[in-house]
């Protein structure tokens, strides 16, 4: 999309997923993105923007982001107050966390913590027949955001604070107990501690650095 056109992006829908997490759907206009990229959003009259991975798919005629209200955050608190019809500011998509065309039919392991699941949601809704497994690290099973879109056998919730998930423990515990095929391409998205610990475990299992792709949330 040519930003010179200065389109107004309006909220179309808000889906509350938990007390603090929600999906914002808004106009797409002609904004192009590749699944896995992020956009910058903020209140229309605000000067402050934050990066959010696109949650929706490449073929959708709307854009969605998955937001978690952060206690000491400024932008997420503002976004939480938005209503349907409100305008927001949207900056064009950038980022390199994406699946290369040559890798689309390979064995893929997606590892997310919390809202780090957003780019994987975009992958799965953008590309048909992906051969993936998704490990989702969350504290409570109730945080398995819209997990019904993933095939049951592909989505593994790693729940650390209750026993209602597929696996009880952190994603790093799962990696310690389960062997990952060394030809797997691994995509990690979420907080940096999870990413760095997982990366060490994957490398111990023989996954090469070149097969590991990361997107740090902060």
């Amino acid at each position, binding site marked *: 999309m040519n930003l010179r056109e*200065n389109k107004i992006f309006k909220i179309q829908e808000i889906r509350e997923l938990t007390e603090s997490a929600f999906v914002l759907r808004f106009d797409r206009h002609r904004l192009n993105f590749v699944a896995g990229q992020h956009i910058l959003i903020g209140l229309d009259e605000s000067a*402050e923007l934050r990066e959010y991975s696109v949650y929706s798919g490449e073929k959708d005629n709307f854009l969605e982001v998955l937001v978690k209200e952060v206690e000491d955050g400024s932008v997420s608190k503002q976004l939480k107050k938005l209503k349907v019809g409100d305008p927001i500011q949207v900056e064009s998509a*950038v*980022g*390199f966390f994406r699946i290369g065309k040559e890798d689309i039919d390979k064995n893929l392991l997606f590892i997310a913590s919390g809202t780090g699941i957003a780019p994987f949601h975009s992958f799965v809704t953008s590309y048909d027949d992906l051969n993936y497994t998704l490990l989702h690290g969350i504290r409570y099973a109730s945080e398995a955001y819209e997990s019904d879109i993933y095939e049951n056998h592909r989505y593994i919730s790693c729940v650390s604070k209750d026993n209602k998930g597929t696996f009880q423990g952190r994603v790093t515990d799962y990696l310690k107990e389960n062997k990952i095929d060394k030809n797997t391409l691994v995509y990690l998205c979420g907080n940096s501690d999870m990413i760095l610990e997982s*990366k060490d475990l994957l490398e111990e299992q023989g996954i090469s*650095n070149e097969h590991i792709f990361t997107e*740090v949330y902060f």
Partner: protein
Amino acid sequence: MIKYHLVTLGCQMNMSDSERVRAVLDGLGYIWTDKEEEAGLVGILACSVRQKAIDKVYNRISKWNKWKDKRNLITFVSGCLLPADRDKFLKLFDLVFPMSELNQFPDMIRQYGVVTPFGLEQEHSSEKEVIKKAQAIPDFVSPKKIEFNTGKKMSELNIHIEDFWDVEPNYASNFEAFIPIQNGCDKFCTFCAVPYTRGREVSRSSEDILNELKRIVDQGFKSITLLGQNVNSYGLDKGDEEISFTELLEKIGEYGNQSGKEFWLYFTSPHPRDMGEEVIEVISKYNCLAKQIHLPAQSGDDNVLIRMNRKHSVDKYWQIIHAIHKHIPQATIFTDIIVGFTGETDEQFQNTLKLMEEVKFNMAYIAMYSPRPGAASSRWSNDIDQEIKKKRLHASSEVLRKHSLVYNKKLVGQSRKVLVKGQDRKEGYLSAYTEGRIVVRFKSTNTKQIGSFVDLKITSATSLSIEGELIETWKD
């Protein structure tokens, strides 16, 4: 006659921008003064890399606004501004604008010239009050015109950047110049605020770049630096409509061959992620493309690079270094290093030292990490003790010195073509640099040599300084 004074803070990009600001003001008939006390128009190009630089802006405007009690003065601020600072500056400065709006600067000044009488009380007025008063004056600006002062939307930061590039700069030197080829950044390194101050990457047209380059080479410029936040992602934002950075270098190389002019072409900064072997190959092919590569590493540890969101690994960095060694073994290699980044362990720092030991950089700009307001990492704890940062800075500086000394000693006895830059701090000496940007001083009081190539025989070297003797001055 109205005089102006401009304070430029920060990096080469701001230095380059200041040349265009001065061109606009000179074109309006304002006269430059080194003394801000004499100026009727004072401005500052701000830098948001560190809080200290922003504090300097606040100190300056506080002083300038006090002067307004005694005389008419128009103040402006531009440059690298975070949105939050920009909003605060709106209440302190007469004019606040993104650099991309520079071509509207004459209009802004004319309009504010009218409102200067009540500009005296502006310090205590809100922006709305100022606009209201301004509209009450006949022939004043329409409300639409004053919108560029608000500058709130990041997405609009670069809308007029191409108009900005159309401004012909007043180069600060007559033999060295910067040519901006790109503005903004899409990389979002967690320690850096540039994506929030300069917006998304926008590439300047290659035709304009080449025209500017040819014009200044014709004028006798000897050292030209292509500037951008990530020069090697040049053209990517334009898709098939623009050539790549490699192709741009190739065109410059061809022009260098055809023109018969002697000049050195540098570029800064490349990002390792987008740096391919083809760039190195092109540099090796053309004499005018200087054999000096500034390749920021930031860290020699993969986990730190992940936290920095650098999108390159140490392996990738080494691939580029190997390509440099293969195609241009004579090249000097410079880098940027941050020590004490959030969470950096001793072991991770040792990996940075290891990288420095193995690459043997000629120069490294080493900084102790400090959170930059607005950058993502400023939301993380700055958890490395200042004393540890100092020790790491010292240790990495020692490694740099060790290897630069070895390189510099090897130059002793050799002759080198150098570009004379100016007078050296040592009296009776001139300062020059080699194609690899290694600084050399030589005994001479002939200031006519400044801006010329000369041949020197290197006579002595330490880790930080090299001396030579004049062999020959090149004729243009």
